[in-house]
């Protein structure tokens, strides 16, 4: 007979340590009191985000205690040429935090997964015409590289550099969107490779790397990753590139023509990327509107953003024009490149107007 070891466990003690058990100074102080919420009552988002990244200009009394070999540590405001009289005024309109990130992206994942399962069950790819298969193989295949590059080397990178937790967290979520979307496109590519249709799942690499129509786009993406100023990087990507190249390809081409080519799968997947960008443009617009309307720095910021437009608009327009041949590739050509580009330009102008920025002359050429 084996000896039974005496069990040992902590005892429960009723301590009456609930809120309201006693009245004493601060016994009802049940709101974070070190920041002023945007409205009367603090949101969950504000409570879990504001001031988690300290700032010597707010409460951080000892300053940053580690520095880089060639400069101060922490989150120096000098890491961008843009200026703000209060960076902390920016709040993410999407109010992203733990629960929203996983709920939203999980819902998207389920939607995409269901869509792809249904496609297999219905043998949806069997009815695609060869031209459309080729279009998806080459062009959506190329595009997923752009999404992935932006995820890892633009948005993930930016979120180290912004001067507040609100900015950096919004951008981190943007990175997650891009990475998930890029992977969804890649796994869609894998499904098509495994379907009984003529689809070369490896063709995307050569197209992205060498096809003339995609090289200016790849060039812009690579040039974006080389930008050191985090604010310029965000502006050039979400305001310029996404409008003139990203939305041109996704919104004005793929979303418009897929159904007419017998494809109800691609718009469902690309639509999730569109939804992501809509949310991500929301925070980006708020941030840059804050900067252009800044009482102290608004005018200098506008001049700065004008310079950034001068740099990035021509590059993105070059990329857009280079893509023109792909409008001719599908069997059903329901939109023209000219109409798509006009629509993209129009939305871009509207966005710039919203930010209080002049449209660059290149847009009219």
């Amino acid at each position: 007979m084996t000896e039974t070891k005496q069990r040992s466990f902590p005892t429960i003690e009723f301590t009456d340590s609930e809120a309201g058990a006693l009245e004493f100074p601060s016994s009802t102080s049940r709101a974070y009191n070190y920041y002023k919420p945007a409205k009367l009552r603090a949101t969950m988002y504000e409570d879990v985000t504001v001031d988690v990244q300290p700032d010597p200009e707010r409460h951080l009394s000892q300053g940053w205690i580690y520095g880089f070999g060639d400069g101060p540590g922490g989150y120096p405001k000098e890491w961008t040429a843009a200026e703000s009289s209060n960076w902390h005024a920016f709040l993410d309109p999407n109010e992203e935090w733990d629960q929203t990130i996983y709920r939203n992206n999980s819902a998207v994942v389920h939607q995409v997964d269901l869509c792809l399962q249904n496609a297999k069950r219905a043998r949806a790819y069997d009815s695609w015409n060869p031209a459309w298969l080729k279009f998806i193989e080459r062009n959506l295949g190329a595009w997923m590289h752009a999404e992935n590059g932006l995820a890892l080397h633009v948005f993930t990178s930016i979120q180290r550099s912004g001067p507040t937790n609100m900015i950096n967290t919004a951008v981190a979520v943007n990175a997650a969107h891009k990475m998930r979307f890029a992977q969804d496109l890649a796994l869609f590519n894998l499904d098509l490779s495994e379907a009984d249709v003529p689809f070369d799942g490896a063709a995307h690499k050569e197209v992205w790397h060498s096809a003339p129509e995609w090289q200016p786009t790849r060039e812009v993406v690579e040039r974006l990753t080389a930008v050191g100023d985090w604010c310029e990087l965000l502006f050039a990507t979400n305001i310029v590139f996404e409008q003139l190249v990203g939305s041109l390809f996704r919104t004005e081409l793929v979303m418009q023509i897929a159904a007419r080519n017998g494809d109800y799968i691609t718009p469902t997947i690309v639509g999730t990327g569109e939804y992501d960008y809509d949310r991500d443009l929301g925070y980006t617009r708020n941030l840059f509107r804050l900067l252009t309307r800044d009482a102290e720095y608004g005018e200098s910021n506008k001049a700065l953003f004008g310079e950034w437009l001068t740099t990035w608009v021509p590059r993105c327009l070059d990329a857009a024009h280079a893509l023109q041949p792909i409008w001719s590739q599908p069997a059903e050509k329901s939109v023209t490149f000219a109409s798509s580009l006009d629509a993209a330009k129009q939305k871009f102008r509207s966005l710039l107007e919203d930010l209080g920025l002049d449209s660059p002359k290149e847009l009219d050429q």
Partner: protein
Amino acid sequence: MSRQSLTKAHAKITELSWEPTFATPATRFGTDYTFEKAPKKDPLKQIMRSYFPMEEEKDNRVYGAMDGAIRGNMFRQVQQRWLEWQKLFLSIIPFPEISAARAMPMAIDAVPNPEIHNGLAVQMIDEVRHSTIQMNLKRLYMNNYIDPAGFDMTEKAFANNYAGTIGRQFGEGFITGDAITAANIYLTVVAETAFTNTLFVAMPDEAAANGDYLLPTVFHSVQSDESRHISNGYSILLMALADERNRPLLERDLRYAWWNNHCVVDAAIGTFIEYGTKDRRKDRESYAEMWRRWIYDDYYRSYLLPLEKYGLTIPHDLVEEAWNRITNKGYVHEVARFFATGWPVNYWRIDAMTDKDFEWFEGKYPGWYSKYGKWWENYNRLAYPGRNKPIAFEEVGYQYPHRCWTCMVPCLIREDMVTEKVDDQWRTYCSETCYWTDAVAFRGEYDGRPTPNMGRLTGFREWETLHHNKDLADIVQDLGYVRDDGKTLIGQPHLDLDDPKKLWTLDDVRGNTFMSPNVLLNEMSDAEREAHVAAYRANGTTAA
């Protein structure tokens, strides 16, 4: 998703990367390490399609438990002794978590391996999850626990408190300096692989024993992400090991990272577990016993030691010295006594120790009573205002300690204190290793080679300097550690909330002038300083 499908999916995802030809990503954060010869090491496979639903499921469990805790009146049985320390811990930890997210692009910049880039970007999102889920836990405590003071000013207090600054290294260290030193060795190879065991496993275990089952719910959920992070770190470590030129840097960084983690984490978590608990069962593991299991056996013997087969010199001496400090030199007990000495400038209350506590400590750490018992009896005797000053200003045989310039925990093992003039300033260090960290490791040259990317120690590193020669009441008011009646202190040296007369106010602490040990040290003549340091070091005695 089946294993085969996962492998195929992962292989497909790796096709997304490419070698740039027009421009290469900006190197915002440099490293002195080199990866030219590094083989590509594959981290744990993770794709977003399975990642998001998995994490959502984990979240559902966490938030369900939170609802349950409130419905089940968890706070009827929470020990205040325990939850008060959470005001400090939960003010600190969301910053290291979010810093870990911010550190990921540093590692991505430094390591030319696209497969690791994916894993690091997923880790970034994990860390946003951890930071915000922990902030939310704290919010729940603030809303439902009897005394919300301290929780209500949490991030401000973290940013202006002496203990918050100690904890802030465990965050700033992830995001500053050499990208590999910070984001790989310090963050992943040491902090996450070794010390999250005590942070996120051992400590929640103690929380449960004190009636709080939400801390384990949240932190075990956090810890379940760590295995992927550990995998990321190990992959990069193996890549770094492939180049002989990295070896001196790896050995430097392992020494710095190990020692700093020990100084900071063991100080905090050791105190929370040993002095924040009411569970004094004789067979309840002490922090030293937990450390032996989680750090010494699980990390040092199972993770660090096998690295020797790659020819890496492991800091055996520092592992043994950390163990020695915890078991023989009273490190945790000294830290707890220091925190309790500073109670007026805390934003949490610290309970007195009782005979039951004394007995437990003596059983676990023989000789404890002879070294610390009398002081805690004095702490109890001086707990209420009216007839005495705060204990720091009473004669109880305790000299307010010098601050370690490097780890910023005071030089509590007094015989080990190092005093040197560095960068034209007399500085004190808790140990030879902390001196080495400042004077040798965090410099632009190491062992005869340029290390331009290595970080620097900056800032107002001695908290006391900021408050030198000020009245204690003014300091407390400046810090904002005052309750909503405008006079009662948030920090109290007891847990009695039922009698207002027992609560210290600004008036009760006024008239005591606070002096910075470092300012005074630098004002001394050489002879005065030598005598002072000799006396300070002689005051330290090793626990029997």
